[in-house]
C-alpha cells in the first residue's frame, strides 16, 4: 500500500504557513441553541480515582483501613450497644492516627477484627477491652482488673492466642493458650478470671 505522494519539486520555494482550519460550522447557529453535552460514560468518582496518586498516601490508607473495620463492625455487631460501638470506634481511630504512625506500626487486618467481634458477641463481656495492634496487624484485646489479666491476640478464622494471669498463693500465675475462640470462653472460666470481663471493683 502506498500513501499519497506529493511532488514538491515543482512547488515554488516560499515561506508558506499552512493552517489547518475547518470551514464547516459544527456548533449551533445561535448561542441560544446550546449544544447538549453527552453524558460521561464513567462515573465522576471513577474519573476522580484515575487522578489519585498511587500508591495512596498514608492518610488515605489509614482512613480506608478504619472505614473497612467500621463497616465490618456495622455488619456483624448489631448486638452491641451504641456505647460499645462508640468506644471501639474511638479506639480504632486512636490506633490508626496518622500523626502517631511509626516505622513498626501496622494496619489492622480485617479478618482478625471479625474474629474479635465474634468473640465479643459470644462471650458478652460487660467491661470494655483495651485494644492494640500486633506488628503483623492482628487485633489485640486486654481486660485488666487488679492482678488479673486477660490478653488475647486475635487471628483470622476464629483462632486466637491468649495469656491469662491471676494472683496465686505465692505470686502471679500465668498460662498461655491457643485455639478456637469458642473454647477460649471455657478456658477463661476454668482458669477463674472471668470476673476480669465484668464490671465491679478493680
Amino acid at each position, binding site marked *: 500500500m502506498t500513501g499519497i505522494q506529493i511532488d514538491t519539486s515543482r512547488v515554488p520555494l516560499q515561506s508558506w504557513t499552512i493552517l489547518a482550519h475547518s470551514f464547516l460550522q459544527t456548533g449551533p447557529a445561535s448561542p441560544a441553541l446550546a449544544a447538549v453535552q453527552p453524558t460521561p460514560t464513567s462515573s465522576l468518582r471513577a474519573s476522580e480515582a484515575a487522578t489519585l496518586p498511587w500508591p495512596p498516601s498514608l492518610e488515605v490508607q489509614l482512613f480506608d483501613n478504619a472505614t473497612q473495620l467500621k463497616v465490618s463492625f456495622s455488619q456483624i455487631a448489631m448486638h452491641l450497644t451504641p456505647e460499645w460501638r462508640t468506644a471501639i470506634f474511638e*479506639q480504632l481511630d486512636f490506633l490508626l492516627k496518622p500523626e*502517631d504512625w511509626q516505622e513498626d506500626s501496622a494496619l489492622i487486618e480485617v479478618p482478625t477484627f471479625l474474629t474479635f467481634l465474634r468473640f465479643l458477641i459470644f462471650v458478652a463481656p460487660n467491661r470494655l477491652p*483495651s485494644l*492494640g495492634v500486633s506488628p503483623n496487624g492482628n487485633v489485640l484485646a486486654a481486660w*485488666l482488673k487488679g492482678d488479673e489479666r486477660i490478653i488475647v491476640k486475635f487471628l483470622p478464622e476464629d483462632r486466637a492466642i491468649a*495469656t491469662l494471669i491471676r494472683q496465686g498463693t505465692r505470686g502471679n500465675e*500465668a498460662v498461655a493458650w491457643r485455639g478456637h475462640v469458642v473454647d477460649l470462653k471455657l478456658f477463661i472460666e476454668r482458669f477463674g478470671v472471668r470476673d476480669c470481663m465484668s464490671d465491679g471493683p478493680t
Partner: protein
Amino acid sequence: MARGKPKQARRPDVPPADHVARHCNPQRAIRHPVTRQVQGVWPEAFELRVNEEWLSVHWMEYFSTDIDPQFRKVVKALRKKRDVVPNSAIARLNAGLIVQAGSLRGHSLRIRDRSSTGDPGYSGIYGMPRDNSDTELLALLASECCIQVRAVRDIEAP
C-alpha cells in the same frame, strides 16, 4: 603484617538490680479503653523484628540515679535515632527479672551494654527466640518484668 584493631574488652552485663527501658509505639501500649491512660504494654512490644538479633533497650541507670531524669534522658537518646511520638510509651523493666523470666522459660537471656558516644545507654537483650514463638516469655516480660510504663507525653510534661 599489620595487626588488626584490638578487640574491644567485653563489657559487663547490666546488673540485675538495674533497669532497662523499652520504647513501645502507640499501638503497643495498653491504654484504658475510655480515658486512654497508659496501663501497661502488650507482650508484642517485646517481639523481635525480622533479622533483629537482640531486643533494643536503654540502660536507665546509665543516665541518672533518679527515675524521672532516667525516663527523660532515655526519650532524648531515642530521639537522636528515631521519631518518638507523644502517644508512645516507655516501659521500665528490671534486669534481674528479665534474666529470671528467661531461665523460667528455658532461655539464657543476657542484657549487654552496647552504649557508645553516639548512643549512650544503648543495650540489648540477647537470647530471645528469633521467631517470637515463646508467647509465655513475651507475656512474662510484659507483666512480671515490667515495673512501670509511662507515656512519652507524661515524661515530657513540664
